[in-house]
């Protein structure tokens, strides 16, 4: 312990003598790794958005040259007019970037890394070097995926779900290197997530501060813990599947090629066995962070803390037995469809419990509408739409009509954009001071919020309607179908809203960058919150605490009658509080 102790208090007291490279590039500090994830995945978010804008151009104005499209090569968009083969690359890469390189790393890579040690009260992750590798493998995966956009015959083009055998055989898809790079990249993503998850799990189990019992953990930590378990067990399945897909592509195996005895549905089983837990990986951390923000904004303890925890656990458990609902019309055994339908409908229950508990938290509160709170309330409002529209497709007969239509696109964007991304905007604004020592601009944050809220709904809500009318997904030009031609004005409306939505996000990016240098200096506890991270100066120093704080109570003691002010930090010792028992760790 001696050598450790020597550096542990180096944080605040004396200056940090690590070199620039060790400090900011090959850093093992969980906060720096979190911030590295933040910058990289915000970049990929922008890439994913740009791809979506091109898709929307084609859907809104088919056959017209795209402004600025002239820079694209002849094989993609001659004269700026998008070709069908480029369009399906856009579809594929938009989904891939957003799911694997934007939302997932933003939620897990950024906030699991940044928040877990700060919120449970420890100096760093259990395995800091493995944590560093988790970032670098992710970056390799991202660079590989990005490079696939620039190979001669283009990026992968079988949808982000990579349904075989379209993805498995190059003569079917028409792309070769792009498809292979996709598989390679996904293997790296899987590795990165596994390394990250095992770190988060070990850290949360073993390294909590004194007094930080399981049921004093903030819900954000609970949700990140459960998410880590999902990631730990789901990502290896994806990696295994991607490896087999890669083998089909390059060494001639036949796992997914029915022409040589393989099974096309096997890929779907593997993919969705990973993919449904993945859906919860993409929403649970958002739910957790929103719980923290709503309790703070309402100045009230979270309503039904224990049932919130059990709801997270229930969602995670049920998340493993619902994957077949992506395959109701795939030719899967229909009896299996029945059981998947029931488990899928049941998973709505814990989601409903969470929603009502958030409302219960706001009920009789004293609501402060700072920017994170606005996003959190919007999260609840939008997540409800995404959750409820999920019930339509859970009912198997209705799914017959809306499967693979824009109804699904609307649903998943209501959950991933309306849910996860709103939560992320809120969370970034909320913990920005602890990351960078400055506050983001409040007025611009509000402008960004309201414009996003409006244009987001204008973009995605109409998709429910065209989806009901039967507009299929991933169509290069829906006007091929007579029954879809009358909907063209709606597509134009959606496209224009989408452009405005994208433009609005630039406000966020500018605010983010501007505040890095010019933002108002943040006090130690700008939101008057209870978490352990707010006991540190902003930005949090290397090594966090010289001596980890002791925890005396749960994280949501707002408006407690015990104190005059309306918050009571976990680390604040009242005269009535007793020191937690010190339990020596056996076997050390």
């Amino acid at each position, binding site marked *: 312990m001696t050598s450790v102790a020597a550096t542990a208090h180096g944080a605040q007291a004396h200056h940090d003598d690590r070199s620039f490279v060790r400090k900011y590039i090959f850093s093992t500090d969980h906060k720096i790794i979190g911030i590295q994830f933040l910058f990289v995945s915000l970049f990929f978010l922008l890439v994913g958005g740009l791809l979506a804008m091109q898709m929307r151009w084609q859907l809104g104005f088919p056959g017209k040259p795209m402004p600025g499209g002239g820079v694209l090569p002849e094989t993609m968009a001659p004269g700026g007019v998008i070709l069908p083969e480029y369009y399906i690359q856009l579809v594929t890469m938009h989904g891939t970037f957003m799911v694997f390189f934007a939302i997932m790393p933003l939620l897990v890579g950024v906030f699991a890394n940044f928040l877990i040690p700060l919120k449970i009260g420890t100096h760093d992750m259990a395995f800091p070097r493995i944590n560093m590798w988790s970032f670098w493998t992710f970056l390799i995966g991202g660079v590989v995926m990005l490079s696939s956009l620039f190979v001669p015959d283009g990026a992968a083009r079988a949808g982000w779900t990579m349904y075989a055998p379209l993805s498995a055989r190059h003569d079917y898809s028409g792309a070769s290197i792009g498809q292979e790079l996709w598989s390679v990249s996904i293997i790296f993503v899987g590795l990165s997530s596994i390394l990250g998850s095992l770190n988060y799990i*070990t850290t949360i189990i073993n390294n909590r501060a*004194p007094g930080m019992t399981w049921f004093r953990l903030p819900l954000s930590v609970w949700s990140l813990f459960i998410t880590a378990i999902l990631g730990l067990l789901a990502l290896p399945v994806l990696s295994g*599947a991607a490896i087999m897909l890669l083998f089909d592509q390059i060494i001639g195996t036949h796992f997914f090629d029915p022409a040589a005895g393989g099974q096309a549905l096997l890929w779907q089983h593997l993919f969705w066995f990973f993919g449904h837990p993945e859906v919860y990986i993409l929403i649970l951390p958002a739910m957790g962070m929103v719980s923290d923000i709503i309790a703070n904004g309402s100045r009230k303890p979270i309503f039904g803390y224990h049932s919130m925890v059990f709801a997270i656990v229930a969602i995670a458990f049920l998340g493993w037995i619902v994957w077949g609902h992506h395959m109701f019309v795939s030719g899967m055994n229909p009896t299996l469809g029945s059981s998947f339908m029931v488990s899928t409908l049941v998973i709505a229950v814990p989601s409903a419990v969470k929603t009502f508990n958030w409302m219960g938290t706001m009920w009789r509160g004293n609501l402060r509408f700072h920017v994170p709170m606005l996003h959190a309330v919007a999260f609840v409002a939008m997540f409800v739409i995404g959750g409820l529209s999920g019930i339509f497709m859970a009912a198997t007969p209705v799914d017959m009509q809306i499967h693979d239509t824009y109804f699904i696109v609307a649903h998943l964007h209501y959950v991933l954009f309306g849910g996860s991304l709103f939560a992320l905007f809120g969370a970034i604004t909320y913990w920005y001071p602890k990351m960078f020592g400055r506050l983001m601009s409040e007025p611009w944050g509000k402008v960004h919020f309201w414009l996003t809220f409006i244009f987001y709904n204008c973009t995605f809500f109409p998709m429910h309607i065209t989806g009901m009318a039967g507009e299929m997904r991933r169509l290069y030009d829906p006007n091929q179908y007579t029954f879809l031609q009358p909907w063209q004005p709606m597509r134009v409306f959606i496209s224009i809203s989408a452009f405005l939505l994208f433009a609005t996000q630039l406000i966020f990016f500018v605010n983010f960058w501007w505040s890095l240098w010019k933002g108002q200096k943040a006090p130690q506890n700008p939101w008057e919150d209870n978490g352990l991270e707010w006991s540190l100066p902003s930005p949090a120093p290397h090594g966090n605490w010289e001596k980890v704080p002791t925890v005396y109570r749960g994280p949501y003691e707002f408006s407690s009658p015990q104190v005059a002010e309306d918050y009571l930090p976990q680390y604040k010792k009242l005269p009535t509080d007793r020191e937690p028992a010190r339990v020596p760790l056996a076997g050390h």
Partner: protein
Amino acid sequence: MTHAAATVDQMQPPYPAERGLDVYNKKLGMWVFLASEVMFFAALIGTYVILRFGATGEWARPGIVLNIKITAFNTFLLICSSVSMVKAYAAIQDGDPKKMRFWLLMTILGGATFVGIQIYEYVHLVEHGFVPSGVREGSELAALVANGTLPAATMGLYGSTFFTMTGFHGFHVTCGVISMAYLYFTKALPGKYSKQDYGGIETVGLYWHFVDLVWIILFTIVYLI
């Protein structure tokens, strides 16, 4: 906590919050990692089971394509190396680093021999015409397919699943051998393990036994069934 002092950046709380899992970080981390490894092999083995179960034709009977004798020996070898690993662990628990080094070295040798034999097996199989895409045209095995000893319809799947599963197992064995050799030279030889601090041996041992465990399953379902 002594073994936690490996890197300067690795800082632990002075005492734990409550009894976590009552195991030190490395060991817990290894178990968590093994859980994800179970899922990885579940994907590969599950694929094999589902493909074989759903195959339209008969599957090749065991013992025709694959050399059972040499693999049975290899299985035995891996079991032996598991025992030698656990002997090394027991030795250091008793505070006998010399004995620990001996058993660790035996384990490394056993593992390396396993990999060597597997490479030999692969070379042989490919010479006979068994490749990941099935059976090579004009090879010895192609003749067996032609005369009906081997089913033509499922040989492609047989090759795909066989090479993927055993290949990834072999990759895991190789990783194990490398990490054990690394620990042998950087920790065991300089005498860094003691009765009080043997976390590295126990952790790498867990990994090694897991690899052995996977092979036990693979040997049965790939070679014998």
